[in-house]
């Protein structure tokens, strides 16, 4: 394998990982944009989506309909969480809302353990999706599930772009994200917009959850935690609350993680997560608006 092929393979790996991070981060950013809420429960909504899909495949449903049901299930879970846990504290201080989202995480995860046990279970992916493509005499490989992930990421993001720029609801959502009070002032139904934001974000979480689990090959109640942490980093690199930012941040993070392992000396690679989270702190300090909103004010 030549140096060029090695690099190309690692770039493919980075894009594949990055698209997953981007999907999770976009959902986080939608909620943050509208509600200024750091939603820790987002990872558990991913888990709900993945489990729904696995259970439905288990009773004989084909993959694609099960995926769609998983997305719907996640969206419904997001709706319930907003209605039950977040709405009563919508105007509470940041910290109260952050803590409530932590409590929701705690409940959902342990509920998952109670119902499904904490042992991982198999994700029955159709074998065709596991087939791999070999290019340049096998030097470069990628799988159908990689392609599917990338394709669904792009399609869903284009759909989201259309939604927030072309529909009344989407425009309202963006207005609320820029200034909640002003949106209310001009007569927008804020409750409705918040629910829409949650449902859309949770649908993204559901999609990301199914794809994440499909790539991992297993589902388990704790599965949402790692992607959630990574998505925080991605969202903050790109600019928390900005959808484009989350997208860019996701791909940057994916590339960073792969390249650290691929090109750094062996003594450094085990510190990958430390490097990633140092970057998070650096961004918070020096560029809190992220890459895409360098001039955004942040309150101290």
């Amino acid at each position, binding site marked *: 394998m030549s140096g060029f092929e090695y690099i190309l393979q690692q770039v493919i790996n980075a894009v594949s990982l990055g698209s997953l991070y981007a999907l999770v981060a976009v959902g986080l950013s939608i909620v943050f944009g509208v509600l200024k809420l*750091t939603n820790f429960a987002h990872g558990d909504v991913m888990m709900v989506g993945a489990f729904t899909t696995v259970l439905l495949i288990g009773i004989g449903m084909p993959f694609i309909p099960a995926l769609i049901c998983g997305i719907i299930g996640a969206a419904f879970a997001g709706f319930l969480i907003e209605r039950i846990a977040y709405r009563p504290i919508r105007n509470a201080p940041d*910290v*109260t809302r*952050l*803590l409530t989202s932590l*409590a929701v995480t*705690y409940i959902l995860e342990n509920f998952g353990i109670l119902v499904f046990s904490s042992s991982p279970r198999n994700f029955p992916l159709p074998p065709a999706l596991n087939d791999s493509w070999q290019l340049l005499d096998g030097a470069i490989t990628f799988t159908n599930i990689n392609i599917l992930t990338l394709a669904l990421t792009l399609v869903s993001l284009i759909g989201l772009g259309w939604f927030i720029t072309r529909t009344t609801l989407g425009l309202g959502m963006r207005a609320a994200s820029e200034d909640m009070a002003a949106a209310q002032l001009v007569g927008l139904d804020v409750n409705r917009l918040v629910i829409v934001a949650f449902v859309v974000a949770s649908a993204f979480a559901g999609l990301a959850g199914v794809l994440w689990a499909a790539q991992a090959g297993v589902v388990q109640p704790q599965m949402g935690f790692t992607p959630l942490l990574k998505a925080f980093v991605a969202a903050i690199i790109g600019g928390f609350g900005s959808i484009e930012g989350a997208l860019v941040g996701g791909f940057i993070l994916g590339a960073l993680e792969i390249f650290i392992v691929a090109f750094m000396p062996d003594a450094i690679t085990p510190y990958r997560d430390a490097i990633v989270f140092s970057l*998070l702190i650096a961004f918070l300090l020096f560029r809190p608006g992220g890459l895409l909103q360098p001039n955004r004010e942040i309150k*101290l």
Partner: protein
Amino acid sequence: MARLIISGVVVALLAGVAFGAPSLMSDYFVRILLIIALNSIFVLSLSLSNGFTGVFSLGHVGFIGAGAYLSGILSLTVAQKASLLPHLPAFMNWFSLPFLPATLVAGAFTAVLAIIVGYPLMRLSGYFVSVATMGFLIIVNVVLINASDFTRGARTFTGVPLDTSLPWVFGWLAVTLFVLWRLVYSPFGRRMKAVRDDTIAASAVGIDMLKTRLTAFAIGAFFAGVGGSLFAHYLGSFSPVTFYFAMTMNLIAMLVLGGMGSLSGALIGVICVSLLSELLRSVERGFTIGHITIPALFGASQIVLGFIFILIMIFRPKGIMGERELTFGFFRRSAKSQIKQGEV
């Protein structure tokens, strides 16, 4: 004068419990008592930044872990160091510290660490500081796993002498309470609350925000390091995963339930959550013994705790105590009025 007598009585009572309990109670209850006291040190030290200064840190457990590991390394005997930590640098491998000095060094180390980490981080607020301190926790975890010359990596750190007894923990709890009480209800304490309640106004009247936050953060970290050392000498063996998100959640739940702006609230939170967890743990188990074939409800205790947490957030967002203190009518009444002023 009354204060002095009351303090004397409280100290005598604590000492009585600390020294008397092991001979009166079963080891099980002694352990529960010890864990409650230990968690009180953790939660009190956490309340300084998270409750009184308004810097909601998710990285506190990182300091506890750092303190536990450092104290553990210092307390191993020279022979143990040679076998467990063969690659320890020469300046650390020729001596072994007794419990108290090791604990003090651990506290001092975490305080210095807090100043280094806090110097940049304390400029942030709201969720930014929470996410950044969470990053710190993850970084500590990665370092503990990878600095295997010092920490044995992911492998269990073991062989720490089991020195932590009830008198030690109660003694340190008393010191923690005393220091924090003096601090919180002092001019510096008012500065902390001013920074928490209105950053801009606080700066306008000349309060150095960074210095105030950093001081609170570092003092909290000192006691976290001390608590970490006590914890290390209680468990005897631990690994990096001991000091991670599960512990963070536990401490935050205790703090929030009790009330974030109150020292007695922190204590009440610890006691409530600890007793409730123990109770729920035996209820869970009750279903698995005998011939009752109800599936085990493992995880049920965590769900119940989570719901209680959300209900508190919705209906009593300031926790059980809010910002009041349980003083039984003693101590300075002014403490209350000070807090009132601080409220927005």
